[in-house]
């Protein structure tokens, strides 16, 4: 097993990970999911919003994550939709600021 020094997105958090595939990642997988978001934003544009759940459902996901079902979210649609990803990021950012 390769042990590599890894960096978190925050400067003050430097941790060690034993994962052999992504040597630079923080221990709560933030970097991995940031990269996934970047990938989806770059590769899955959906300007016609085909298959997108209602924006109210996405808002509900951010406000009360336990109340939303996969069916309402159209299963894993968000993982292949730049528009939903963008909206989720905005909603999450607003939630953090409020």
């Amino acid at each position, binding site marked *: 097993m390769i042990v590599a020094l890894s960096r978190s997105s925050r400067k003050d958090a430097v941790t060690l990970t034993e*994962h052999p*595939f*992504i040597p630079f990642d923080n221990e*709560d*997988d933030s970097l*991995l*999911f940031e*990269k*996934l*978001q970047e*990938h*989806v934003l770059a*590769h899955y544009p959906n300007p016609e919003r085909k298959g997108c759940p209602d924006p109210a459902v996405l808002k509900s*996901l*951010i406000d009360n*994550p*336990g109340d939303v079902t*996969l069916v309402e*979210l159209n*299963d*894993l649609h*968000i*993982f*292949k939709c730049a528009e939903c*990803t963008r909206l*989720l*990021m905005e909603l*999450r950012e607003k939630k953090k600021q409020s």
Partner: protein
Amino acid sequence: MRLPTPADLCWNVKCSPDQEWIERTLRIAVENVWPQALEAAHSRNGHGSHVVEIVESAIEHAVCRLKTGDPLGPEQVTQLLQRLVLQEVRRRRRANGRMVFVGSSDELPPTPVRNPQIQIDCALDLKIILQGEPPDVRLALLLRYSRFRWSEIAAALGTTEAAVRLRCKRAIERIREKQEGEQHES
């Protein structure tokens, strides 16, 4: 490959009685040249399956030249045949568009997908990667993707942070592998 007899290879050599030396010296030359011809055909074309045709063609050219010149000894005929064999190997290689065939496609190892679009779909299509994962794992990963912290996800799903992370561990490892593969490809 079985060594053909010179008679096998010189089957089309037809000479008048006064040029009988051509057939005699060519048979000796064929025996001398055969191993080198086989090696040349194999190293330059990737296989030796055409070596008989190559040597036969070289013999045909040799006969044409020998018929117009003075009688030569076996060593000189061997040198001539060697040269003509190598010329024929090179000609065939050029005729094949400089492609070198080594083995067959069945022997090739599986190669990664080269089409960039397919590569994206295969490498990081989370819908495919997470196919078969239970609903709670899918929802947890969706929430993590939406920038929820693991502790918040655990609270939303009514479990502990350690438990939810353990449930998602295998799926995250698969995503990491795919992402790493994509980084290597790009």
